[in-house]
């Protein structure tokens, strides 16, 4: 929990490792200083001991005195150092704090010993061979440690003061560095939901440019989506209101046609046709809404369906209407054409394609429907001799309510949206082009090979 909380703030994420690193480096440096100083100090002080011993040895050579001399204590540190001089086994000179017995068991060289006073001493023993002089010079080890601690303190103490200062400075610097981020969040926070204009990225720090650019791209996408929704609402209003307005107008005409029976009959028939149109529109809207709301429910579960059978069924349904307009519906299908799909939805797809082709083809022309099965692919092609479509219109095909105006047809522009949606649900590819055979529109639906 604590960890997660810490990760939330960039400031903390920058500051904590920084301060941790500084502390570790500083402590490491202090430790190295400690080791280094300790060695140097030992060398230096041992050198002094040896020097002092050598001086005592040399001095003893010239002294002819059989009494034990007690050297006076001249400095406050004098109690921390001690010496003894033996001549032919007899103690001849010592410092006040040195005992009567030799301080070191060794006759020559360094030794660290514990003396009668309970303190640890560093003792150097030296021997003057010429006149059998034995000299011991000692120094309390804890004085050495005191010097070491003093050095260590002076190395570590500043850290204690520097750390809070460093933290404060670091905090300030990081805060300064993050200012553009805060400004950005302020700018975005103050935006109205409709304001989707681009954020200015020119003067952004390079680290933030990708964020701002990503945000701008998102704004663009949202704006496009909103525009498409607005268009949808406007188109939906038009498509829903027009048949209702028509029904209303025709009903009123029927009511107002006092003795004119022919006019009343005509108006009532038009009212019924308007109701049928509104019903069809509502059904299409519902189909589309269901497809968009739940594209992966069991309702649309893909089974292996014989597309030929579905197409034959739909063609049989539509043929009578086509015949009244002297249109010829030709179905060319190989025997087995299994596709992944759902019987009902494939029926809707094929019906919409055939219905469109029949609707936009002139009387007396042919509509060709072909189903081919090769290399695992199943391809449904519907070609007509209608007016076709410009490339610009082809690109817009499938937008809800889009239809090419001025065709004298009462389509709602939803059929294509439904076809596109169903094709998408079953992974089929939809292609629209100009028919080279019939001159109108050619629609290809391509189901890929089954994995």
């Amino acid at each position, binding site marked *: 929990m604590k960890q997660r909380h810490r990760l939330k703030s960039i400031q903390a994420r920058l500051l904590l490792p920084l301060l941790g690193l500084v502390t570790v480096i500083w402590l490491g440096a202090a430790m190295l200083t400690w080791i280094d100083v300790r060695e140097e100090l030992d060398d230096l002080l041992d050198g002094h001991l040896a020097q002092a011993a050598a001086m005592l040895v040399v001095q003893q050579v010239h002294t002819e005195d059989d009494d034990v001399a007690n050297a006076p204590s001249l400095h406050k540190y004098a109690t921390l150092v001690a010496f003894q001089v033996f001549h032919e086994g007899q103690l001849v000179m010592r410092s006040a704090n040195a005992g009567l017995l030799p301080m070191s068991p060794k006759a020559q060289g360094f030794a660290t010993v514990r003396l009668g006073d309970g303190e640890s001493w560093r003792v150097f023993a030296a021997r003057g061979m010429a006149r059998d002089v034995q000299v011991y010079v000692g120094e309390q080890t804890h004085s050495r440690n005191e010097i070491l601690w003093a050095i260590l303190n002076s190395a570590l103490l500043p850290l204690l003061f520097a750390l809070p200062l460093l933290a404060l400075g670091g905090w300030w610097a990081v805060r300064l560095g993050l200012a553009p981020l805060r400004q950005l969040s302020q700018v975005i926070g103050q935006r109205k939901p409709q304001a989707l204009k681009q954020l200015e990225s020119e003067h952004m720090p390079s680290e933030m440019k990708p964020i701002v650019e990503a945000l701008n791209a998102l704004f663009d996408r949202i704006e496009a989506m909103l525009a498409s929704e607005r268009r949808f609402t406007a188109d939906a*209003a038009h498509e829903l209101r027009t048949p209702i*307005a*028509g029904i*209303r107008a025709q009903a009123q005409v029927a009511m*107002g046609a006092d003795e004119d029976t022919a*006019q009343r009959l005509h108006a009532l028939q038009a009212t019924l046709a308007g109701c049928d149109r509104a019903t069809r529109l509502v059904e299409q809207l519902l189909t589309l809404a269901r497809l968009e709301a739940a594209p992966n429910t069991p309702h649309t579960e893909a089974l292996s369906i014989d597309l030929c059978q579905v197409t034959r069924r739909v063609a049989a349904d539509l043929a009578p209407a086509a015949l009244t307009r002297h249109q010829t519906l030709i179905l060319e299908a190989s025997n087995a054409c299994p596709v992944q799909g759902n019987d009902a939805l494939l029926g809707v797809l094929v019906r919409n394609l055939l219905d469109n082709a029949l609707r936009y083809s002139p009387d007396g022309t042919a509509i060709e429907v072909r189903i081919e099965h090769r290399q695992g692919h199943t391809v449904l092609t519907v070609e007509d001799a209608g007016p076709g479509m410009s490339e610009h219109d082809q690109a817009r095909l499938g937008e809800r309510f889009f239809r090419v105006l001025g065709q004298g047809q009462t389509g709602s522009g939803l059929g294509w949206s439904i076809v596109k949606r169903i094709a998408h649900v079953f992974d089929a590819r939809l292609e629209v082009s100009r028919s080279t055979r019939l001159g109108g529109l050619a629609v290809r639906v391509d189901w890929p090979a089954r994995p």
Partner: protein
Amino acid sequence: MRILLAEDDAMLGDGLRAGLRQQGFVVDWVQDGAAAERELSGGDYAAAVLDLGLPLKDGLDVLQSLRARKINTPILVLTARDAVPDRIKGLDLGADDYVVKPVDLHELGARLRSLVRRVHGQLQDILSCGDLVLDPAGRRVNLKGESVLLSTREFDLLHVLMLNAGRVLSREQLEQQLYSWGYEVESNAIEVHIHHLRRKLEADLIQTVRGVGYTLLRREAT
């Protein structure tokens, strides 16, 4: 009153035409924007009903280019686009009224009459000239408090003359106001109707300006 109806939907257009005809309007119906603009540029229409989502040329474009060319025929926009910005845009581009579908046919008729009336500077729907009173909505004519029975054409002719009281209208202008397309107008039709009106009303009500046309003189009510 001759009205141009621009509506691309077959069923709605058919219904509107029939409904407006029932109310005594003379209606010409076009189904695309280009035709609407062409007809309004040339024809003599009292008003127009314009759908916005028209093929070939959008209704708003038609409106804009007509107004740019100083064609001031009153235009009622009839559309499914009901958003306030759409309404504002329509009115600012020169629409005289903005009605959202679906619309009551009688309301549509009343609004058209109101537009035409305003163009002629009248405040009330009821037109009067001396003792003569004409009610366009009820299609009734009273002279000195007594109802006068007129045929459809006679009523329309009197309506046009009263709307333009004090102005001289040529025979062609009157024909254009009275007949829709495809109607074979007999060369003396207007003269015959004028003759009938003079007989049914008062002989000196409608004046002939020789070689120019006809006019109805303004009179104060007595």
